């Protein structure tokens, strides 16, 4: 004899209340009257409820789901016959893994302990260990399923998320996790989690999955840093070598160009001089041909006239003056050439 889904009508209710009051007016018992008014007030109080803008209300009558209410004021059958459960379907919900936000503010403060550490430590595909912190944002897409399909949806969702993240991280190397693979890991984990939500049919839709801090475990962190340092060193060594290269090569090119230009200059110089000399000779030769004997003598004598004064010692002797021993004053020569 379960009462079936007849919607509760507040107008009907107030009409009944009016009739009851009319009937009671004739009564001679004021106590009963007061009691009835009290019951009426209680009924009014327990039949009113309000749904906030980011929620929907799910109404059950004797435990059976009968209707969903949108935000605003509503009435229900009082005295626990109809009950309402409110679900924040519009709200963006968030779960954190590997840390907890204590106070979200301009400068948020976080908390980590053994429990959150256990959430974040995981094995990578190359059997190394890494600590991964991440958050998942989700919405309740189906309030009915969210409320009635699973007993502890939120906690189950946590476990699902952890399993998904570890599955994906387990398929990546620690290097990928720390460097190139971050985004694809988050994307894959989100996809896996969405599929799992569909499988579990828990009324949750995953909005975002974001990796936060991803680190090697504390004990090995220095050696990971050492790798980064080594990379820096490598880059520096290479850069230095290139710097040397860039310093010397252009200079060498410049010097080479200088030498070539100088050679070019030398060649031009040679040719021009040759041309000049040739022209001078030609001109002279032309004139010479007109009076060879005279010109020749003239040049000869001119040369002697120019040269003889420059010579240090001159001795002019007569071949015919035989028997006379010419005198050579050798002294000054020895002085000049020690």
């Amino acid at each position, binding site marked *: 004899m*379960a009462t*079936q889904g007849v919607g509760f009508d507040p107008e009907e209710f107030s009409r009944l209340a009016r009739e009851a009051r009319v009937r009671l007016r004739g009564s001679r018992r004021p106590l009963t009257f007061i009691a009835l008014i009290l019951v009426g007030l209680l009924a009014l109080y327990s039949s009113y409820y309000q749904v906030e803008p980011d929620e929907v209300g799910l109404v*059950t009558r*004797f*435990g*059976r*789901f009968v209707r969903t209410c949108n935000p605003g004021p509503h009435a229900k059958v009082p005295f626990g016959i109809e009950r309402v459960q409110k679900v924040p379907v519009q709200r963006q919900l968030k779960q954190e893994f590997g840390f907890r936000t204590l106070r979200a503010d301009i400068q948020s403060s976080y908390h980590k302990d053994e429990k959150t550490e256990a959430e974040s430590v995981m094995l*990578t*595909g*190359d*059997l*190394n*260990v890494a600590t991964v912190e991440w958050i998942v944002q989700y919405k309740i897409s189906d309030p009915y399923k969210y*409320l009635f399909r*699973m*007993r502890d949806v939120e*906690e189950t969702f946590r*476990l*699902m998320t952890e399993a998904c993240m570890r599955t*994906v991280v*387990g398929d990546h*190397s620690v*290097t*990928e996790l720390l460097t190139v693979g971050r985004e694809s890991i988050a994307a894959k984990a989100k996809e896996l989690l969405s599929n799992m939500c569909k499988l*579990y049919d828990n009324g949750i839709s995953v909005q975002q999955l974001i990796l936060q801090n991803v680190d*090697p*475990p504390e*004990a090995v962190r220095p*050696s990971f840093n050492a790798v980064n340092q*080594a990379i820096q*060193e*490598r*880059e520096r*060594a290479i850069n230095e*070598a*290139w710097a*040397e290269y860039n310093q*010397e*090569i252009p200079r*060498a090119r410049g010097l*080479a160009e200088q030498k070539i230009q100088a*050679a070019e200059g*030398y*060649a*031009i110089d040679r*040719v021009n*001089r040759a041309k000049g*000399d*040739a*022209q001078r*000779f030609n001109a002279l030769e032309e004139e010479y041909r007109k009076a060879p004997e005279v010109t020749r003598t003239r*040049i*000869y004598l001119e*040369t002697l006239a120019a040269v003889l004064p*420059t*010579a240090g*010692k*001159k001795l*002019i*002797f007569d071949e015919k003056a035989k028997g006379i021993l010419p005198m050579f004053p050798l002294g000054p020569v020895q002085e000049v050439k020690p």
Partner: protein
Amino acid sequence: MSGRSTIILAAFAVLGLATLSSALYSVSETEQVVITQFGEPMGLPVTQAGLHVKVPFAQEANVFDKRWLEWNGNANQVPTRDKKYIGVETYARWRIANPLLFFQRLRDERGAQSRLDDIIDGETRNVIASHDLIEAVRTTNRAFEKGEEAEDIMEAESMRQIELGRDKITRLILERVSHVVPDYGIELVDVQIQRINYIESVQAKVFDRMISERKRIADRHRSEGQGKSAEVRGKKERELKVIESEAYRKTQEIMGRGDAEATSIYAEAYNRNRELYRFLKTMETYHSTIDKDSWLVLSTSTDAFRYLQSQNAAGNAGKTVIPSR
């Protein structure tokens, strides 16, 4: 109305209310009910939510949850087939599929939890222990992407191909458990490996390995840096040589060309009158060879001085001093 009749009326009212409240029971969306009569189950379980009626007083409504229920395993320490000690945490979700059977076999959820502990933990151990660790960690055989700065030095073991992978391992556990639990009126909807971790003593060794691995990577980066920089220096040396030698070659070529051209110009000009050229060049040589330290011994028979002897001496030029070719 007499006082007695009022009392009788009140007694009837109380009795009626008690009967009504015992006859009516509500079932919520999350519940299912098994009706028992003096302990004996009656009819089919009630799974429809809403208000229901039963025989008052004689029948009892036993409420069970209809939803997916929790089961969270403890951290099991299991050696894998390749003798690695790991802690495995699993979780499962189950529901009461046959409340009557569940009621008969397990009575309540607490009984179910302890039974599930035995079964799921046991099967998890079995499955994990009969496979290598890598099978429970990896899902696929995808090749690891190599970091832009280093292809990693992998342990040979971790690069091994897997046969099953995490998904199939969990399916295997689920399958095996699913064989057993219907006997208890339970349906197992999912089992997942939530966490796998090394146990502490193994973890220390793993950390050591990771450290030595990173050290190798760091060393390789360093030597790579040295190698690359030496390469650049070598390239520099080579290019310097190329540049210098090429410059030398070009200068010699250019100077040679200049020399050649000049030579041909000279030759062309001087060929017109070799005798004159020889004469002029000789004269020029006097200019450059005779200086203040030179001794000149000249005969009066020389062209220039023959007039010292006689004004009309025969002109035979003495060329004894003048070196001529």
